[in-house]
């Protein structure tokens, strides 16, 4: 709907929603720690808990990106250059891990390396490799999603022409002079995104590593004692220092990302003619293991949820049982039942949808309208809506938590809706990123013609615009649901009221119960299975509605 006031209002709501909690949190931390950027940064080295964390975070993120490329590029090549039976099914399976909640992946990989799986965790050096591979598992879909379109739509004449030129006589020559220049922006964009996601990894780091932290998981840990005057002051400095460094690095990566994305768009062929491709039997040796890799952690969780492993000094006793499911879905433990958590998760996801979708849509519309009249202001608003991407979910969680304390903690703790604030902060930017390209690709003639036919503003919106953008709107809606249901970092920080417990939080809580209760692992896996199946249903729905060439990042 093109309405100036609505646009201004939406920008204001967004800014208040996003900036107010962060500003309040920042203000509170500075109130405790004092304003001294140098000592914030320095505190990272002076505290045992944060020492070496930045180095570890960068190292693992770089390695994760490299490994993701090493596994992803051959898969994308095979998928893009050759013809496969059930092509879209294979692509769906390989890109599915991306929408899986990270806590589900953490449970899956813990079981794979645990004593009922490969049993390699007892070798203390394996966790690092496990972490990297788990990050690769998540992000291979990015490589496929970014590189495959370039590979699969390239006119075969280009390669045929190259063969006839001296520079392209050999395979290596064609790689160097044709494929690499075409692919590098896409590869780099995928690597860049993988870096960002691995850099802010929390659930996987929390469960897989042995005490090692990313900036994100470390902040979550020390965050619980933040914002108290004169108490644990150095921890407030650590949070300020880490947030600042993380924000800067993420902002730079996102800038790089959008630059690469632009380069990439210019290299994408404009028409998507179907290119005749050959079959490649040998390629199965790449595709089949990749499919197994994508499915394995999820299959593992499902099986493990029915598997009880009672071991003690007198020997081990393993059997199949529903007891884990019963334990998770009953109130017989002192945690809320998984049933309550499921209701909360669904409730939060639906309400987040009701807020984030219209808000994100109007923001995208406002940017689109401004692009025509005031391009500079449009760019500013566009950048503002991207800003939250540089704020990780733990930072958002800390912002909401400290913001609540600053305004009226009693009120915020007493209402069930509070966590939705964090969910809206996290999902709205994604809505803008999905809707904006769709709005840009919408023919202005459709709108103009409707005006000459006498259709009013509201009629045009509901009869013309919404139906034409149906695909992108549905993708955005499902994306909001999936992100909200799987949200872990912010929820982990703010959930202090058992009425707020969501599925990812209860998985973490059940697995954290100390003492050897043989039911805790299967129960955590049972809840993970539920969450995984929900994510799977949502993913299948997006694949169905995704516009064929939306040019978007997600």
């Amino acid at each position, binding site marked *: 709907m093109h309405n100036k006031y609505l646009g*201004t209002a939406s920008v204001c709501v967004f*800014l208040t929603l996003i900036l107010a909690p962060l500003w309040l949190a920042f203000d509170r931390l500075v109130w405790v720690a004092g304003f001294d950027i140098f000592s914030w940064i320095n505190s990272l080295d002076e505290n045992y808990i944060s020492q070496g964390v930045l180095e570890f975070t960068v190292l693992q993120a770089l390695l994760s990106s490299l490994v993701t490329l090493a596994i992803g590029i051959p898969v994308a090549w095979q998928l893009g250059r050759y013809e496969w039976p059930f092509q879209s099914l294979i692509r769906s399976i390989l890109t599915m891990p991306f929408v899986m909640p990270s806590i589900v992946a953490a449970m899956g990989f813990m079981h794979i390396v*645990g004593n009922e799986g490969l049993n390699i965790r007892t070798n203390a050096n394996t966790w690092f490799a496990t972490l990297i591979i788990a990050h690769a598992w998540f992000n291979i879909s990015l490589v496929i999603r970014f590189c495959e379109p370039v590979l699969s739509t390239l006119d075969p004449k280009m390669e045929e022409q190259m063969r006839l030129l001296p520079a392209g006589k050999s395979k290596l020559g064609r790689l160097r002079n044709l494929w690499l220049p075409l692919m590098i922006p896409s590869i780099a964009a995928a690597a860049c995104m993988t870096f960002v996601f691995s850099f802010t990894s929390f659930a996987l780091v929390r469960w897989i590593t042995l*005490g090692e932290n990313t900036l994100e998981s470390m902040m979550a840990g020390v965050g619980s004692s933040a914002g108290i005057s004169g108490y644990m002051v150095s921890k407030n400095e650590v949070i300020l220092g880490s947030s600042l460094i993380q924000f800067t690095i993420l902002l730079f990566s996102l800038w790089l990302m959008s630059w690469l994305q632009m380069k990439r768009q210019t290299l994408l062929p404009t028409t998507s003619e179907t290119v005749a491709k050959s079959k490649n039997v040998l390629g199965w040796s790449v595709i089949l293991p990749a499919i197994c890799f994508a499915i394995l952690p999820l299959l593992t969780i499902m099986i493990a949820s029915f598997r009880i492993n009672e071991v003690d000094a007198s020997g081990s006793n393993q059997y199949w049982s529903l007891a884990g499911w019963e334990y998770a879905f009953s109130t017989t433990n002192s*945690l809320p039942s998984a049933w309550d958590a499921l209701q909360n998760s669904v409730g939060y996801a639906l309400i987040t949808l009701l807020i984030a979708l219209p808000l994100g849509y109007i923001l995208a519309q406002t940017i689109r309208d401004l692009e025509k009249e005031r391009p500079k202001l449009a760019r500013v608003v566009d950048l503002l809506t991207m800003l939250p991407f540089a704020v990780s979910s733990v930072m958002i969680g800390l912002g909401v938590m400290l913001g609540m304390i600053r305004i009226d903690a009693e009120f915020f703790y007493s209402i069930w809706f509070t966590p939705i604030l964090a969910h809206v902060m996290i999902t709205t930017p994604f809505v803008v990123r999905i809707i904006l390209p769709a709005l840009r690709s919408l023919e202005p003639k459709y709108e103009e013609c409707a005006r000459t036919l006498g259709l009013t503003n509201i009629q045009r919106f509901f009869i013309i615009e919404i139906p034409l953008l149906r695909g992108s709107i549905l993708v955005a809606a499902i994306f909001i649901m999936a992100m909200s249901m799987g949200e872990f970092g912010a929820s982990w920080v703010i959930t202090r009221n058992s009425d707020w417990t969501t599925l990812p939080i209860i998985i973490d809580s059940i697995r954290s119960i100390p003492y050897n209760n043989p039911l805790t692992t299967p129960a955590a896996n049972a809840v993970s299975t539920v969450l995984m199946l929900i994510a799977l249903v949502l993913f299948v729905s997006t694949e169905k509605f995704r516009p064929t060439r939306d040019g978007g990042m997600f």
Partner: protein
Amino acid sequence: MKSALVSIFIFSMMVSGCISESIEEKLSNGNMISPDDYVWEDDGELVIVTYDVTGLTDELLSEFENQSGYKVNLMKLEDAGSILSHLLQHKNVQIADIALGLDNTYLQTAIENQVLWEHFANISGLYENVLGPYSGPLATPFDHGYICLNYDTQIVDGENLTVPTNLWELTEDEWKGKIAIPSPETSSPGRAFMTATIDYFANDGDNQTDWRDWWTSISQNDAIITTGWSEAYETHYTGGYGEYTEGYVGDAHIVVSYCHSPGVEAWYSGNWTKSAALDLPRASFHQIEYVSAVEGGNLGAASAFIEYLLSEDVNQKMPTENFMYSVLDGSDLPEDDGYRYHSTIPSQVAEITPEEISANMEMWLEEWNKAMVAV
């Protein structure tokens, strides 16, 4: 549009400015309030802020609900440190009625910051020893135990590794990367053990080095410092039940735990354990865990719960439900399956007064931090 953005920014600055002033005011104007001035409201609900205290079984809570008519709501945090932080962050804000699990290394800070209220539960028959650090009405002990090092007797057998006779031996090469200690910054057993080392090294007859030097050496000897007790004991320690859990690594043969942890192991596994407590004089700490009414909370419900928790029927179950000693006079660990036989009462615990703890804890933690990062 631009002007709207600017006005929003200014507005938010103003709001935040006003609020931070009001907080400072509230925090600085706190004179000790006497129980006569308490204002509270009975909303029929009891919110317990705690960490994973396993003793709070569902049966126990629902029995209390049936008996008292209050509805119980649990707020589970990561560790004892988070309970204190939570209380401090929400001073003057009614968010909980009971704090369960602050121990004698945390309690003084909570008392000084006036986040606790005097309850009116009728308590009697407590073991005299547990009232030593604090016997006032702001907190009541509900369980206790002794923190000390545990070792795996199958590996620390005199052949592969020798049983240490003093803490310095742990800084030697053979122990490199084989000791798991929960961090004093986040875990109450970790904090208790750090406190013990202060007394231990102050009395070891060596004036050249103190506890800080030992922690620097232990850090350089790649000791595994974990966030909480369960990570140290379950994931890293080879002598306990951890090896039966998923995620087990088993790279530490000595761990900071309780002197009665081997008893718990034996009780679980039919009078068998390979874990033993290491009884070094002054290297153990008598830890007492408290239950307190939270300032501004439902004092009636809190008092009822404290009375219930300290009643004989409930508190005598502590060893089997919560794996800690009961605080009732004359109670002891059960004899079954070698629970008491494999538990150790340390010969001499660290002698640190509550006053010393309350005066120095913040500083000790900072020095510990410095010692750990010193190279």
